[in-house]
């Protein structure tokens, strides 16, 4: 418990970056990374849910009886996810239509539940907030980098703007499901090589 708040925050960006190091939350990682826009939207949603649920679980950790803790975590997480869903529907409807089912599915994503159980239930509010924010940003960064790779090569665009000349033939394998697995595998491989030193 000697780690500082800053360390709790930065571990989410590299040492415990969710999809690559913990290999958690892969379902939306594979599904929404077709375009950078979707990935960033999803990332922001996860940052919000993760930070808020971590803070609330840390605040309530003395009150929540350990036998029903999972149920309590799920209620907290589901509440914040629904908040995100309603707000997205009200203010960014086109993004909501693209992300569709993956917003409500954050509830059953392993990351918020995992962090609530493994971290926020045992640590203070500040540390939990830093942990949630760090992991959330790490998740968003992973999604963005993966989607940048897939969108640039698969569709020849970045954030909807064309990056190559008109002669570029999109490598459409990359934006389809198998391309997602291959990209994720390669990213994992690179992360492991870099992390070995």
């Amino acid at each position, binding site marked *: 418990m000697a780690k500082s708040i800053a360390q709790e925050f930065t571990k989410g960006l590299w040492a415990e970056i969710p999809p690559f190091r913990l290999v958690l939350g892969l379902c939306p990682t594979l599904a929404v990374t077709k375009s950078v826009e979707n990935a960033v939207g999803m990332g922001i949603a996860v940052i919000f849910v993760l930070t808020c649920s971590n803070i609330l679980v840390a605040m309530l950790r003395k*009150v929540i009886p350990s036998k029903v803790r999972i149920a309590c975590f799920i*209620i*907290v997480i589901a509440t914040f996810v629904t*908040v995100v869903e*309603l*707000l997205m529907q*009200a203010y960014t*409807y*086109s993004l909501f*239509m693209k992300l569709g089912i993956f917003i409500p599915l954050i509830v059953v994503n392993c990351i918020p539940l995992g962090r609530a159980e493994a971290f926020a239930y045992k640590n203070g509010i500040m540390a939990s907030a830093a942990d949630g924010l760090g992991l959330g940003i790490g998740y968003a960064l992973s999604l963005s980098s993966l989607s940048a790779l897939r969108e640039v090569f698969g569709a020849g665009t970045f954030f909807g703007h064309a990056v190559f000349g008109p002669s570029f033939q999109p490598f459409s394998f990359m934006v389809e499901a198998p391309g997602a697995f291959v990209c994720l595998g390669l990213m994992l491989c690179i992360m492991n090589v870099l992390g070995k030193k």
Partner: protein
Amino acid sequence: MREMVKMVVVLTVLCSVSGGLLAALRDGTKDQIENQQLEFVKGPAIRKILVEGAGATNDPIKDRFKIKIGDREESFFVGVVNGKPSLVTFESTGKGFGGNLGLVVGVDVTTDKIAGVAVTTHSETPGIGSRAQTDAKFTKQFVGMPLSGEFKVKSDGGKVDALSGATVTSRGVSGAVTLAAQLYQQAKPQLVEKLKAMNK
């Protein structure tokens, strides 16, 4: 025993707080969400029929009203052509191949003729039934037909040219137009009055 009580209390309180918060938020965002749905789901189809198709000069999404038919309330979107509110669009549904088909039907109130038909929501097979939404030729054939009676595809003895390979979808669209015709007949007296009031 004390632990039991604590568990029940904590879960109950947590659930009610969460439920209350979400209900409040839902109430607060309800109108905004409805506007967004109109804008993004039905808006493009309605504008295509009224603004691009018939040359309406107003924003049909803003000029809308509701009419009670039986126990249902239907929204009507008005198109102003040559300074006169003569066109209306409204929604109808039919049964497609993969589920319900949502349709927007535009009609000229002065002549009772169809001004345009567009599919808004569907769960048809991509590339086959989904052409009902994207193939302009298919929906264009309805333009100019009088909006009354029953609409049937040719293989059922009607006048509608079905999309090849997507007879069920075409039937669904025809059914939705038939339903729209019934709705229109019922709503017409109120509709004419509302439009008259708008004209002043």
